[in-house]
């Protein structure tokens, strides 16, 4: 498979909060000791509930947040503490599609200016070459004819078209890696899938690697090769999408799958199994397995004491649970 595009070892990001002159600061352990790899031309979906650390992980990999601990390798290079010129290289090679398509475009910029900006920042091409790259990027997200869309302002575009401009902007520097943070969660059902297809095309045709952040397991199933499940700042399970869905190994993943309905008129006749309680505080996470207070099979003296590590129980399928086998 060759050298991985992205490789994380023990990546950790804590946020410091509430420190004062005489008070010791507290730490939000948003991402704790995450290790994973992403190959070129592959999509890894990162699924988890609100606050589980998905965005923080994505932003830390791109070095938009300073890692607290651990190592990030990108295209064979250690980028954990890159600075200045070298960091600019990373900024070019790795892009983010942010969580909110509505606030991520400047309303006073027409599309061509929004797309030209990164090219200018990185000093790429002359006017003519930049214009051609803009047209190619618009074409790749199916905003055709590109000349027509190049002169539109964001308010003249539908939500789906706006999101495609955001994708085109992420594509303009020919990146090798893209973190797409909930790229379709604000869009209507009928429009959603067309954006996801475009991302898939980019992945397959251009060999771009994707980290696709979502809370929607069904979308992950259809648009990613592998799925990682996050719970309270930890990666608790990761594997090929088929294997993860048909044979989830972690009790949290199992509960998550149970909780998601398919469109089926029979659903209304029965209650759906659901976990009790709420995700824990990240300032004071539970000892041992962070899931143990809600886990239906937790074993006292083990799960509340010892932290489970990721183990490969099936080919390429990892789980962090003491009792999974």
């Amino acid at each position, binding site marked *: 498979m060759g050298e991985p595009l992205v490789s994380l070892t023990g990546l950790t990001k804590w946020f410091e909060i509430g420190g004062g002159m005489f008070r010791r600061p507290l730490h939000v352990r948003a991402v704790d000791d995450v290790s994973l790899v992403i190959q070129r031309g592959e999509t890894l979906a990162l699924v988890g*509930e*609100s606050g589980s650390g998905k965005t923080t992980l994505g932003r830390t990999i791109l070095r938009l947040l300073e890692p607290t601990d651990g190592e990030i390798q990108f295209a064979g290079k250690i980028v954990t503490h890159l600075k200045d010129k070298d960091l600019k290289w990373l900024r070019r090679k790795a892009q983010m599609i942010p969580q909110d398509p509505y606030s991520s475009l400047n309303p006073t910029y027409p599309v061509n200016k929004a797309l030209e900006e990164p090219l200018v920042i990185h000093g790429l091409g002359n006017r003519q070459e930049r214009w051609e790259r803009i047209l190619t990027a618009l074409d790749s997200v199916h905003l055709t004819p590109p000349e027509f869309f190049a002169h539109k302002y964001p308010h003249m575009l*539908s*939500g*789906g*078209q706006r999101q495609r401009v955001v994708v085109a902007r992420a594509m303009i520097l020919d990146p090798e890696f893209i973190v797409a943070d909930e790229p379709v969660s604000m869009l*209507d*059902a*009928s*429009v*959603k*899938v*067309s954006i996801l*297809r475009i991302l898939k095309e980019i992945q397959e045709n251009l060999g771009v690697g994707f980290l696709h952040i979502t*809370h*929607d*397991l*069904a*979308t992950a*199933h*259809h*648009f990613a090769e592998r799925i990682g499940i996050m719970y309270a700042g930890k990666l608790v399970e990761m594997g090929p999408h088929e294997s993860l*869905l048909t044979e989830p190994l972690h009790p949290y993943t199992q*509960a*998550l*799958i149970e*909780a*998601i*309905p*398919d*469109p*089926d*008129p029979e*659903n*209304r006749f029965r*209650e*759906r199994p*659901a*976990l009790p309680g*709420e995700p824990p505080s990240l300032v004071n996470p539970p000892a041992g397995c962070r899931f143990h207070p809600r886990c239906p099979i937790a074993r006292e003296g083990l799960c509340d004491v010892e932290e489970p590590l990721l183990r490969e129980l099936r080919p390429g399928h990892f789980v962090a649970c003491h009792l999974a086998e």
Partner: protein
Amino acid sequence: MAILELEHLNFHYRTLRGAVRAVDDISFEVEKGHTLAIVGESGCGKTSTAAAILRLLPKNVARYDGIVRLDGKNVMELSDEEFRKTVRWQGISMVFQGAMNALNPTARVGKQVAEPLQIHFDAEKEEAMARASESLRSVGLPEYVERSYPHELSGGMKQRVVIAMALILRPGLVILDEPTSALDVMTQTNIINLLKRLKKEEELSYIFITHDLALASELADEVGIMYAGQIREIGPSEYVYPSPKHPYTKALLKSVPILRSSESPISIPGVPPDLIESPFACRFHPRCSVSFEECGWSAQEFADILERLRASGEDGGVRWGEAEVEDDLTLVLKPEDGMDPVTYRKALEEAFHEQEESTRAFKAVTKVEVRDGGVAVTLHEATTPYMIGEAHRAACLLLRKGGEKDG
């Protein structure tokens, strides 16, 4: 028996660009103890339909009429005062979209739940508080919640509070507007389970508004699919889910990524239309994969076709004369050589029928009638769903023609 019946309900907003036809000639029923889910994409008019039922009108109303029958009685005839006293809260209550984030941050939860009783129904404070506490208990909240402030509660608990508020006067019908869309999967499941339990135990009826077809099936006995201000298909869940009839419903069901299926979702081309200048006839036709030509004709376009055929001598021997466009969907034809209108009408009808094969636009004709010495031709307007099975209706011209295509 129906607890709620809507007949030809219209609710339009006035704006600088023109009227927004958010609720456009909507008719449906909700059976007692049943849940009707209204499913549709953002901006199609779901919340507006709820507002029209509860007579929650903004200042810029352009049109508000039709029949809303609650327990057999047309409540549109009530004065605002009577409506507030007898319908709102007691007859029909609502869990508003985003309401859990609109709780008053400075008031304790118990007090907030009790408040409407005191304000709208002159209840004594003590009785109101007792009722509030009973209602909070019925949605599974522990006692301490009464004394808590909203920010001390989780999202799921706040949503339970909002549901408790809607239930406090024991209404027969509760409108739930996206009651779980801001919540996490697991919390969503807990709330849906609660709603299922309340439905069974309290014999509640719901109108469940959502954009999520899978979630709708968690509660829906009947499901109504809304598009651009209109109900396009409605019927028992048992029919609509496994065998949707309207092309939009079919396309929507295929566009949803399904967890337990390996079939790839397929997107619908284009975007939902503007509610001010919606497409003619069937509003879905520009995006429809099986639309016949007749699905989207305006009277002007039809008149142009008549003119073209006449000019090239393809009018089948009937001189259909000069067409005058009356409105979007109606045109009037005058006989040219003093032919009597009744004979003229008959000739036209036959000629149109013959043309159907070669020029599909003719299939859009729904009515040909004598009027003012001429003949008025009305094109398909696709607002009224056709009956296609027991309690199952869909508004697609293909269904009226009996020529359903698969797609």
